[in-house]
């Protein structure tokens, strides 16, 4: 087996574009689920709104990229309001069902032939809408070392992406340690108690939903820009589920844990895939058991199994505090 290659692939992925996207999605979820106790299963919807607003405004409405990015923030605020007004009064499990439905509405509208002309239907939008951003790229050569490998464009996305993640983390750290953040945690622990001291719980939940949603939409914008395309089926419920896996792996209600979770998640995902793939190719694993096309299916099965085991045996993740997540739908 070519272990150097496996390590190179896994490490490049561990700090790569996907890690940044999922870190942002999970930081948003951390705001919702980790700090406020909102079981938002519609995070994919926020990413889709961020990605689609950016792409559609540039491609179909001739906005400049920077204006479109600004509008994508506005659009995700709007989406959070639309989502929050009917759902935030519901109990946790209902909230999960309704938010997952809302995200699915976004995806199905995006892929429908009815709006083919603006949203691109099931093929999505591919175009040079990120040109203004890649024009700023100072790198003409990619990174090529034994343990890391990036193309020039990827290198630019990775560097700017991690700067964005750092800024968002700094913001998160400040805000969850502010009085406002403490009210959120109190809502997570006991809504009635917070109400009894005269706080408007609904308003706080709404603010949390908006902030976390906007952070998620950053992830969507990075997703769209890094690939110069948006495709509706990338924003399915799987995206949300994997973001939850990332969050729970790192440990909810810790500022840095979504990032750590995302790094580990993507390292393992690529590592397992590459090892399996080479094992299959070199016939360490017989073909009747797993063939080359089934490698990634096995990998997803392992993700599912991993999520189950994590939740059962270590629900606080790597860094989390078990006491912080004593959340219970019926309690």
């Amino acid at each position, binding site marked *: 087996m070519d272990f150097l290659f496996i390590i*190179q692939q896994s490490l490049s992925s561990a700090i790569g574009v*996907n890690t940044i996207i999922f870190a942002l999605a999970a930081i948003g979820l951390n705001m919702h689920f980790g700090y406020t106790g909102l079981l938002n299963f519609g995070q994919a919807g926020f990413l889709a709104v961020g990605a689609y607003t950016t792409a559609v405004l540039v491609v179909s409405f001739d906005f400049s990229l920077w204006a479109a990015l600004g509008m994508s923030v506005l659009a995700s605020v709007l989406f959070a309001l639309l989502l929050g*007004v*009917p759902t935030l009064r*519901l*109990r*946790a*499990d*209902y909230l*999960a*069902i*309704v938010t*997952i*439905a809302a995200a*699915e*509405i976004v*995806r*199905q509208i995006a892929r*429908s*032939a*009815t709006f*083919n*002309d603006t949203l691109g239907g*099931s093929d999505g939008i*591919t*175009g040079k809408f990120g040109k203004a951003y890649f024009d700023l790229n100072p790198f003409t050569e*990619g990174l090529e070392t034994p343990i890391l*490998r*990036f*193309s020039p464009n*990827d290198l630019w996305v990775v560097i700017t992406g991690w700067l964005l993640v750092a800024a968002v983390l700094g913001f998160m750290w400040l805000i969850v340690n502010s009085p406002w953040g403490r009210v959120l945690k109190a809502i997570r622990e006991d*809504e009635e108690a917070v109400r009894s001291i005269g706080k408007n719980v609904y308003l706080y939940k709404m603010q949390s939903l908006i902030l976390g949603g906007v952070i998620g939409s950053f992830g969507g914008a990075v997703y769209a820009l890094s*690939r110069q395309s948006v495709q509706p*089926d*990338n924003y*399915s419920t799987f995206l949300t589920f*994997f973001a*939850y*896996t990332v969050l729970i792996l790192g440990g909810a209600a810790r500022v840095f844990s979504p990032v750590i979770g995302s790094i580990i998640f993507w390292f393992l995902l*690529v590592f397992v*895939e590459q090892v399996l*793939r080479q094992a299959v190719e070199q016939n360490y694993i017989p073909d009747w058991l797993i063939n080359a*096309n089934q*490698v*990634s*299916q096995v*990998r*997803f*099965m392992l*993700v*599912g*199994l991993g*999520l*189950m*085991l*994590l*939740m*059962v045996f270590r629900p606080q993740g790597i860094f989390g505090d078990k006491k912080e997540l004593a*959340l219970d*739908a019926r309690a």
Partner: protein
Amino acid sequence: MITGWGLARIPGISYPLDVEESHLIVRSVTKMKSTENRSANSLFTSLGRLLVIFTLALLTPLLLSTQASAEEVTTFGGTVLDSAKKPLEGVVLVVRDTTSELGTVTTDAEGRWSYSVEKTGNYWVKLDVNTLPSGQGLTEGAGEEKKVIVFSLGKTLTVLFPIGEGAERVSNFDRTMQLVVDGAILGLVIALAALGLNLVFGTTGLTNFAHGEMLTLGGLLAYFFSAVVGLPVIAAIPVAILAAAFIGGFLQDRFLWKPLRRRGTGLIAMLVVSIGFAILVRYFFLFIFGGDTRQLPQYAGQEGLTFGPVSITPKSIITTSIGIILLVLATLWLLRTRMGKASRAVADNPALASASGVEVERVIRAVWILSAILASYAGMMITVNQGVSFLMGQDNLLLIFAAVTLGGLGTANGAVVGSLVIGLFIQLSTLVIPTELKYVGALFVLIVILLVRPQGILGKKDRVG
């Protein structure tokens, strides 16, 4: 489509990320067919006979144009086919640009037409519907005029006009009647699945995101006993139900949920566990079954029987009747038997029920088995009528959730009422909105109803947080 996940892109399945970065090696390149019709094939496609030949594919080079060849014209054209996919000769199309009409073309004996332009820009092609043979018309929602954007020269673009048996031939009343029947059958499928989900929720508090996989399990077992073992469908279904009750009911509860209850795992944690389980099982089904939709060998292309305005296949009548019987039996079980009453007691207050001598664990086991029977049969109804794929559960889970939320989570009649409402709404909404958006409509209504009546139609107030 190329995916760095190394997996053939399966029609209909959604991939969370499409890894195409250079640092990941792309190993498999597989051309797959369009995923366009996913929502159409997932449930009872009602208008199949009315519609369509073709999805409109206005394939402008917008997405792909990288280089223009030396030729100086761009040709656009297409083939006009009637509802039976036979080419139509002599159909007239009019081409214009922003200012004036440029010319007309007529389709040849193979139904083909084409028109060449020498400048980039926007063009419009209008199909003269009066030149279509009688009984044929553009399918609903498809405009007579199509816009063609020519970005660069030297290309060939395809412009398609979807043609069906013209909406004017079917009266609105007839169509409504058909949709009511289709909607009721869809409602029954959802109700079978939703009742099981609700019973499990009622007795254990688990919001089971893996419930959709029980439908797939039922469908796959029916396929296995019918297509692989070779039993006739009518014998395969009872065997499959028994197997599903054992695997999806007994084994699942015994080896997954009961140990978790013993550990005192929280309800939110169990919800997340069920998501992990759903992912695990779904990809396991993909692993063993592959990504395509398969029909049972028997009764595959059955002719519909006509009752007045409504057309329905015999297999659909039979599976629907069995479904109704199962639903009635389940309701009787809940209302009349000791075990059923005990299950309602457990749903109401597990601690009190236990103190009154109800064996809570036995009741929960019975509820899981019943839930598996109902859900797997719902999957078999879909399988017999439309075929089975590993995505069946995922496709239907949100509808089941919508029905349950609408009716009231944890209430048995609520699940049935909510399911019928959702089923009818989904089908009838196609009178007004495009068929591909019918599920969006249903989910949207769910959200609106929650605004007005958060506890659902038959739910109790205490569910509001």
